[in-house]
């Protein structure tokens, strides 16, 4: 065992915030997988969620709001021997960074994206996130948001992700289980975690989810695309399936980069320039 631990600073999240549970879930999952902070690459987004940068150790980027997925893809390109994990909020990853999410799905990049889905922008004090239910009232939408919520689950399923799951910050055991599966999965894995923001979101509370979220049971077949799409659309009726919603076996991006064998950062320098130079004679 290594002498470095995942525990960083004591979190500064509001008491009761779902982020506390998610952090414990991540830490526990990584520990159970036999990892330590020297053996993971983490890309934190900017938000309350991303503030985990100081509370969870690892070789990490704490980059720009909305860009954590793009950076993670680069990390994986250089070091495909290490697990790469994205940790961020629904504002950053589905809003500002929605384009990177969409196109990373298509690539089936072997990264695990953990989204704190609290339906608000926590860190900027409570404006709507793109996941907010239609009509949700916030500082930036005093009479309620006009847009429908984004549906990241159906998007992930239909645009190329190969592991799509939903957790709930109130269910620690599930969170641990999903993150372990996601990190172990080869290819793009999404763990969308329903996360009560106790300070700014007075609608989507623990109570709200306890009433409306339910676990997918043993009989559910995550390899069935049609079923998965159906499940993912239940959110329109305020029903939230928990567990692995969709799964597919497919080579991850880095395995399809034909010239990539050893990790890019570890191979020898290429020195046979001669043939390239000759092209220009």
């Amino acid at each position, binding site marked *: 065992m290594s002498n470095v631990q995942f525990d960083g600073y004591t979190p500064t999240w509001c008491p009761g915030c779902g982020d506390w549970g998610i952090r414990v879930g991540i830490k526990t999952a990584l520990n159970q997988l036999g990892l330590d902070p020297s053996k993971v690459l983490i890309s934190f987004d900017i938000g309350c969620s991303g503030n985990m940068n100081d509370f969870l150790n690892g070789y990490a980027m704490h980059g720009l709001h909305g860009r954590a997925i793009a950076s993670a893809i*680069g990390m994986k390109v250089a070091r495909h021997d290490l697990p790469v994990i994205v940790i961020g909020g629904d504002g950053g990853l589905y809003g500002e960074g929605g384009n990177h999410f969409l196109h990373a799905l298509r690539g089936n990049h072997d990264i695990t994206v953990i989204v704190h889905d609290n339906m608000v922008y926590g860190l900027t004090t409570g404006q709507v996130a793109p996941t907010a239910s239609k009509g949700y009232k916030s500082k930036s939408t005093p009479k309620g948001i006009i847009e429908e919520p984004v549906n990241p689950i159906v998007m992930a399923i239909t645009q190329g992700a190969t592991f799509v799951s939903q957790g709930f910050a109130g269910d620690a055991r599930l969170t641990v289980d999903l993150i372990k599966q996601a990190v172990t999965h080869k290819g793009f894995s999404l763990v969308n975690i329903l996360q009560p923001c106790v300070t700014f979101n007075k609608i989507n509370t623990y109570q709200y989810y306890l009433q409306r979220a339910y676990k997918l049971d043993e009989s559910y077949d995550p390899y069935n695309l049609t079923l998965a799409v159906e499940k993912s659309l239940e959110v329109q009726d305020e029903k939230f399936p928990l567990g692995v919603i969709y799964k597919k076996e497919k080579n991850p991006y880095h395995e399809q980069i034909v010239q990539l064998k050893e990790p890019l950062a570890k191979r020898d320098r290429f020195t046979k320039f001669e043939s390239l130079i000759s092209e220009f004679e």
Partner: protein
Amino acid sequence: MRFNFLIGGEAGFGIMTSGLVFSKIATRSGYFIFDYAEYPSLIRGGHNAYEVAVSDTPISATIQNIDLLVCLNKETFDKHKHRLNKNSFLIYDPDQFQVDIEVIKIEIPFTQIKNQEKIQQQMLNSVALAASVSFLGGDSKIYDGLVREQFNNKGEDVVSFNLKLADIGREYVEKSGVSKLSVLNLKENPEKKLVMTGNEVFSLATVPADCRHYASYPMTPASSVLGTLASWQYQNGMVVRHPEDEISVINSALGSSFAGVRSAVGTSGGGFALMVEALSYAGIAEIPIVVFLSMRPGPATGMPTWTEQGDLLFAVNSGHGEFPKIILAPGDALEMAQLTLEAFDIADIYQTPVIILSDKLLSESHYTLFKKEIERLFEEYKPKRGKIVQNPSFSPYLRYKIEPDGISEMLLPGHEGEYYQANSYEHLEDSHTTEDDQERKKQVEKRNKKHLTYLESNFKKPKIYGDHNSEIVFVSWGSMKGTLLEAMSCLNTDHQIDSYMVHFTHLYPLDEDLIQSIFSDLKGKRLILIENNSHGQFGQLLRQLTGVDFKEKLLKYDGRPIFYHEIVEYVLAGNKGK
């Protein structure tokens, strides 16, 4: 000897390829070339013009006067006839237009040949090109060799058909009765040369520079780097990606750089604008990154296929907040090779963004290089990664340790027993977020210190060309170099005027004392700032950082490069005025 060849025709019909073949024939015959192409931002339609300046001494400029104009359509003649004189030669199809000026004509009935031989429009290029080469005294073996290289993968039939077309062209030259020139006469044992655009040189140099990840979203005039590197990646192992947008491009490149590999991105002004937030991140998190920025006339979409040096001040000041960045602008192909290698070193040494400024002129024009020189340069080059290490030299490891030179040790991720963040927030030495006033101050000063260290250790002062005693002093930067050298040589040869050039490649930051001392030596002379933009941006930068100011400026901003004769005329007019 200077000879200027121009071939023109409708866009989309292979003019560009023919021009390049002409350039290679010239270099393989022992000459130097510089070429320049004009084409619209359209796939078809519009006009393409490809001109090649041939010389027996090095040249990196276009020539105003056209010695041989090859017209594949009437538009070529209309657009360029003002550049002909009575000693110029013209290859054209008398069925297409009347020649209303005095010029030496070589008639080739292109339309007729096309119909007779039942060939496609682009094949006429072979006719025209072979005729030109033959007329200029070129060796037919060299021509035929290039045809073979060009069409080899299409089969022997295609090769021999094109050789046949070449013969048709040559016959019309014989028929014309115009006596052949010796412009392309084969020299003995010509030294091996390379014909390369700035973009190709940049691409090539990233390989010895050990760049392992290149990400780019296509944008003229930087796009061809993406294509070139993509085609090489299976051979040299680089990972070459075309992500969904420029924001993803740079953030993914920062990801791979953080994780340990030299990484670069390429774009033009509009794409660069989307990257500046991430540059700022690279600045505070101290992540090395090389940005290849090839300029075109802006603002916004502007004139995609034309040239301008209009993004300098934007590049210098790009990104919010204060952080060190370094800007290099090669003057020609050789400097592109040298500065590309240097850029990757400097990015690593200072753990900060380095921007290589090119423009359409430099990016897409072909220059002549000595093959040996490039080989030697690449072989002698060893990547210098500065304080980037596999193992920390002290413990506990501090990613942002305050050091007298401003540069902390950068441990590559994955080392057992350590961890840290590349933090976009202000941070402590150990990389945790901080809002403490003293810690903030220390980190700001540390980052600022990098510029001072760079000025002491890696900054290169402007290069000086010409006669130090001259009264005329040109001050310029980047791609203007070749034009100015040509203008200086013309002033000297044709007008007996000596001149002097201060040419900058290391644009930012600038060493104030050094620059001031250079310019204080030049007091009283006629200083002329030459830039391919309308704001005199480098002049502004010089004034900002060193106080040096210019009264005389020759600025051009119509999408075209400055031609050397414009400089000569400007100087002569000014001298008269005095």
